[in-house]
């Protein structure tokens, strides 16, 4: 054992040789109990797609059952709030499915009372024109992609992704304090020919998690897709961050869907007040 300057205790590697090696190997050998635990954990972490009303699971992937020309995915509470206030308040949206999943980050398994702050995935289908939106998504990307997209190429479909990231993740030669956050950056697949509504994400910045998985999938299957990434310094639900997505309303994928912008702002304000989480740490 060794102690560092800051008082942490660190295990120093043993230079005596092979004495401890056999014990370590024994510990590493997997027992039947370990295998059972691993199996149960894999079962618990399975992504399940089902209809909430009937509680029946979907046998095929979501987009096979409900093909659409525009697929809009919002990830994170600000992107979700933007979609629910500006897009979903126009037209009649029918809920067609829900993805239920569990992982170590989940704090709730309640599917009945959803809000932009909950980590869950609900799919809506517009009756008047075929398009879908995903409410919010978390871990288990590959399974999620399989269950939603299926394993074959989707023709005549365009995917739009909205998500947020903290501005300290943005790599730039300028100082962060000089950046005017929140700001939008775009990343698109090769087949996306439309000009994006903001500047492209520069190197060496990268996209993480589900948006990256979806974009990679779309690039491989030659689906036109664009990700709008909002860099903000407020990751919780915030009016200014949500409004930073507004330039996207002029894009072709969202133009036909957005009708009532003043009403959307009112709905957004209501969402803010109902979802305020009490925290006394920061004032």
């Amino acid at each position, binding site marked *: 054992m060794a102690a560092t300057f800051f008082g942490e205790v660190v295990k120093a590697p043993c230079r005596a040789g092979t004495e401890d090696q056999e014990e370590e190997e024994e510990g590493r050998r997997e027992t039947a109990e370990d295998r059972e635990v691993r199996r149960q954990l894999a079962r618990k972490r399975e992504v399940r797609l089902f209809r909430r009303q009937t509680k029946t699971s979907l046998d095929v992937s979501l987009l096979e059952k409900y093909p659409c020309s525009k697929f809009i995915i919002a990830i994170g509470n600000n992107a979700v709030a933007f979609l629910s206030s500006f897009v979903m308040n126009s037209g009649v949206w029918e809920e067609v499915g829900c993805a239920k999943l569990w992982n170590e980050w989940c704090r709730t398994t309640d599917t009945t009372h959803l809000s932009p702050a909950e980590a869950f995935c609900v799919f809506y289908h517009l009756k008047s024109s075929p398009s879908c939106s995903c409410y919010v998504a978390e871990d288990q990307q590959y399974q999620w992609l399989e269950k939603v997209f299926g394993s074959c190429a989707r023709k005549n479909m365009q995917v739009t992704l909205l998500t947020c990231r903290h501005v300290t993740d943005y790599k730039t030669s300028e100082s962060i304090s000089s950046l005017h956050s929140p700001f939008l950056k775009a990343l698109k697949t090769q087949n996306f020919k439309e000009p994006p509504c903001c500047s492209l994400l520069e190197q060496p910045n990268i996209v993480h998690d589900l948006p990256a998985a979806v974009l990679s999938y779309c690039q491989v299957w030659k689906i036109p897709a664009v990700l709008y990434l909002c860099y903000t310094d*407020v990751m919780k639900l*915030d*009016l200014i961050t949500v409004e930073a997505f507004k330039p996207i309303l002029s894009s072709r994928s969202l133009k036909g869907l957005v009708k009532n912008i003043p009403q959307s702002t009112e709905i957004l304000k209501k969402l*803010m007040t109902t979802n305020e989480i009490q925290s006394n*740490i*920061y*004032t």
Partner: protein
Amino acid sequence: MASRYDRAITVFSPDGHLFQVEYAQEAVKKGSTAVGIRGTDIVVLGVEKKSVAKLQDERTVRKICALDDHVCMAFAGLTADARVVINRSRVECQSYKLTVEDPVTVEYITRFIATLKQKYTQSNGRRPFGISALIVGFDDDGIPRLYQTDPSGTYHAWKANAIGRSAKTVREFLEKNYTEDAIANDSEAIKLAIRALLEVVQSGGKNIELAIIRRNQPLKMFSAKEIELQVTEIEKEKEEAEKKKSKKTT
């Protein structure tokens, strides 16, 4: 690079950063917005009030605190750190008055707070204070003052400034709208503070708290009704301005 140099406050990174101090500035951005305006005969502090839980006593959730009869402060960031800084400043104000028989100047108490904060950026085993403060008041010479401090221990005098969440947006608004006309009289300065806050406050007037100090007068906290009145006036003025604009274009 950051990950090797950001755990201890006393370690500089090779390119000269003190990452803990910079992270403390991120903690400030987690607090709600506070704005300070220095008028001709008035100083104004406006804050975005956090919504209080149903069972919580509102009086204990305050962002604007008096340090002495003629100086007050608004902060953004870690509540507990603010409490410690405020308590020490209040003691210092009284200690100074007893020693020198004069009230502190706004600059003195600001320097005291900034020095305290700086000490915590240079001590082993301690972390910086995660708050920025706006300190306002009048000195004996009758001149209004507004100072801002940040976690690194720097302080500067300002004509108008904002701290906390969306501070940049508010500061840009102030840069465009802080004119000699805007602070010509007390009510205009108060309206400017409220208008700046309304740029970023999520739910309008009921989430705003306002305090003013006039020359030779004690701190005055505005009641919710008074703030509502101001907000209504501002909205009327906005509507009238928009009507005039549309008339001009037609």
